């Protein structure tokens, strides 16, 4: 995470996300998937092919791509279908767009009810016998059962969570890095899924993306760094009011 300053002098925190060897692996049509839209299966980060059996390598062989550590699917409209085997770059996202980021949260192991659910526990003194971090009552007398989904101690973290509506401040095309506003679930160097935001307030800003994606061998030559309009770039002199 890094600080970033706007032209008015305000400071914001950004998370750096690296797009590492992403390729489109497979196209699943509407009928096959049974959903309203078609799907594209995308794989990230290259990994050695020797730790999995040959049967798991089929998808990668069809696309002509080394084995990927993580694959996930994206719901895509019919006009945005990409041929399997095309690489995806960070320039797919432009500064000013809004993005949803999904990742597995940091695993905390088996945790008690105070850390996991934020219960208040009991006082430390004034006669409490062996009860300082316990949940207390778990149901009422009339219910005569414990409801499903009752908040109780258990394994915390290591589940998929999404942060919505994060602004993209800057994109580095040379190293394929996306600078995304605020914080993102997951630990350092973990694998993360970045999608265009589905929030209704962010639909306007996502109007003109590179469609269907940014092709490196195409005609468009981008500068090394793409900045949002409001960012203070370090080549400018200091801010004055």
């Amino acid at each position, binding site marked *: 995470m890094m600080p970033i300053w706007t032209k008015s002098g305000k400071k914001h925190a950004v998370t*750096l996300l690296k797009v590492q060897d992403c390729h489109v692996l497979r196209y699943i049509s509407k009928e096959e998937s049974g959903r309203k839209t078609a799907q594209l299966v995308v794989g990230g980060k290259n990994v050695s092919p020797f730790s999995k059996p040959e049967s798991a390598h089929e998808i990668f062989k069809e696309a002509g791509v080394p084995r990927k550590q993580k694959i996930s699917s994206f719901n895509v409209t019919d006009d945005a279908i990409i041929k399997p085997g095309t690489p995806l770059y960070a320039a797919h996202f432009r500064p000013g767009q809004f993005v949803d980021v999904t990742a597995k949260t940091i695993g905390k192991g088996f945790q008690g009810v105070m850390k996991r659910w934020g219960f208040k526990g009991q006082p430390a003194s004034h006669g409490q016998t062996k009860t300082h971090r316990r949940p207390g009552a778990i149901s009422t007398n009339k219910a005569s059962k414990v409801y499903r989904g009752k908040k109780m101690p258990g394994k915390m973290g290591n589940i998929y969570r999404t942060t919505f509506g994060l602004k993209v401040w800057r994109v580095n095309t040379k*190293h394929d890095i996306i600078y995304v506003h605020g914080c993102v679930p997951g630990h350092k160097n973990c694998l993360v899924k970045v999608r265009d935001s589905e929030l209704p307030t962010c639909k306007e800003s996502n109007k003109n993306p590179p469609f269907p994606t940014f092709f490196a061998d195409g005609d468009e030559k981008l500068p090394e760094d793409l900045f949002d309009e409001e960012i203070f770039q370090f080549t400018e002199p200091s801010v004055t009011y």
Partner: protein
Amino acid sequence: CRASSDGKPAKFQPPAKPVIVDKQKQRVERRFLSPEFIPPRGRTDPLKYYMERKDMIQRRKVFNIPEFYVGSVLAVTTADPYANNKSNRFVGICIQRGGKGLGATFVLRNVIEGQGVEICYELYSPRIQAIEVLKLEKRLDDNLMYLRDALPEYSTFDMNMKPESHLDHEEIPVNKLQVRMKPKPWSKRWERPKYNIKGIKFELPESKMKEAQKWSQPWLEFDMLREYDTSKIEEQIWKEVNEELKK
């Protein structure tokens, strides 16, 4: 000329060549790498530190961040939308330098009209318009937070202080000042060995000093897992930063 034993003239012996000792070159070049360039120990990808360093060097090309240490007196002018001239000048002694990368900060302390004031500035913030070093010197400690509990005369500096010149090649003077403290209670127990403060003249009784030593952890200096040797990383970063700044 001297007559030799066999009567022939002696072979001409040229005088020894003079050895020119260039005192300027003999002085080892002083290298200063700002502490926020050195990455902390962790599992972050070095690419992240490389990207931050590029931004830091870019800022340094446009705006001069001088060399200074904890204990030097600085004057900082920042842009302030609510001030008269839209700018604000503050003079103070640097008591702490914290943070790594772009978020590096330094705290300046001064006593204005009897009120102690500390301001934490970010080195790379675009609102800072000028940083001047009025007095470049080091102190016995890396962290002068104890000045809060010292007598106010040690933290007062004139707002219109004149900058003191400092020659480029000379070593930075170390001010071995031992500061006198206000009576206890202090904000932190500065006599305890965990703070390892050399710059206070403790006027506490011997029994108190001995009791403070009870909290010493003499095994810490031998702990090998705490060692972080930054010499090689510093060399690499120094070369990189210098090359970029010369361009």
